């Protein structure tokens, strides 16, 4: 039940965000200060969501894990360097499996 409230709430809320300006053809604009903050939503929310889990993974009981830290470092390095999300995911997965296999 709770899950469907989340799915429907997120679905409706996200649709309204998408529809917001398209529904008003009048070409109204956000005030500049709002745009200035909105520009940084993705880069403000996504790192905060994962940083604690990277440092203190639940899978290792909250203990920092060398394999996961190495994989995170490789992912971000390749992502910044190549600007290619898929390459970065591949690099992160490769480092994760290699280090997990080496150090268990």
């Amino acid at each position: 039940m709770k899950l469907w409230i989340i799915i429907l709430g997120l679905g409706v809320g996200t649709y309204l965000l998408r529809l917001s300006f398209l529904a008003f053809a009048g070409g109204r604009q956000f005030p500049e200060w709002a745009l200035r903050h909105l520009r940084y939503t993705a880069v403000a929310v996504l790192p905060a969501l994962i940083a604690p889990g990277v440092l203190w993974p639940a899978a290792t009981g909250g203990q920092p894990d060398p394999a996961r830290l190495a994989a995170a470092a490789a992912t971000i390095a390749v992502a910044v360097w190549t600007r290619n999300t898929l390459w970065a995911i591949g690099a992160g997965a490769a480092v994760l499996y290699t280090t997990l296999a080496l150090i268990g």
Partner: protein
Amino acid sequence: MSPFRDGLRGSIPFVFVVSPFGLLFGVVGTEAGLNLLEVMGFSVLVIAGASQFAALQLYADNAPTLIILATALAVNLRLAMYSAALTPHFGAAPMWQRALIAYALVDQNFAGSMAEFERREMTTAQKVAYFAGASATIMPAWYLASLIGAVAGSSIPPWMALDFALPITFLAMIGPMLRTLPQVAACIVSVAASLFFAFLPYGTGVLVAAALAMVVGAQVELWQKGCAA
């Protein structure tokens, strides 16, 4: 060539971007205990990968519904900016078309359409056709990938350490965003504050950290402009 077919063709590369995310969402969702209908509910009704992953993670952490919705919607605020940016192009289209465009609006067809509309002169109808073509490749790819992931999900062995698929995916999405000083500053504050506020219950630390990071990004941008002026 018709604009619809231009859109179809132009968005084929995006299929290779969207599909892995959809696949991963199906797999991670199934691992988190969602059934097929729930996974597809997300992918058909929300169609915004990053926010779906965010909601999933907080749901697994047993966060309250309101916190989950607030955080996941914060991830999607950029869609309102896309909506604003597309209004000059689609504002003259019939309401039912704009309603459908809003449903299908994601990062990929937004980026592809904006690039195309800047490249050449098009009528409103041609622009709508182009966007429809782009969506006609991206949407089915997203649905199908989620479905395959959800079906395959339960058969993924534990050594694959799927718990870390989500952090890797998010890091890989963040990296290409770090192009300017304000973005780097926002990212650093986001990480530092989320670690500092990790003791706060139910993922509320994420919201605090995100709010701080947005303010810092905006302020650094202002400061940079001040320097340039």
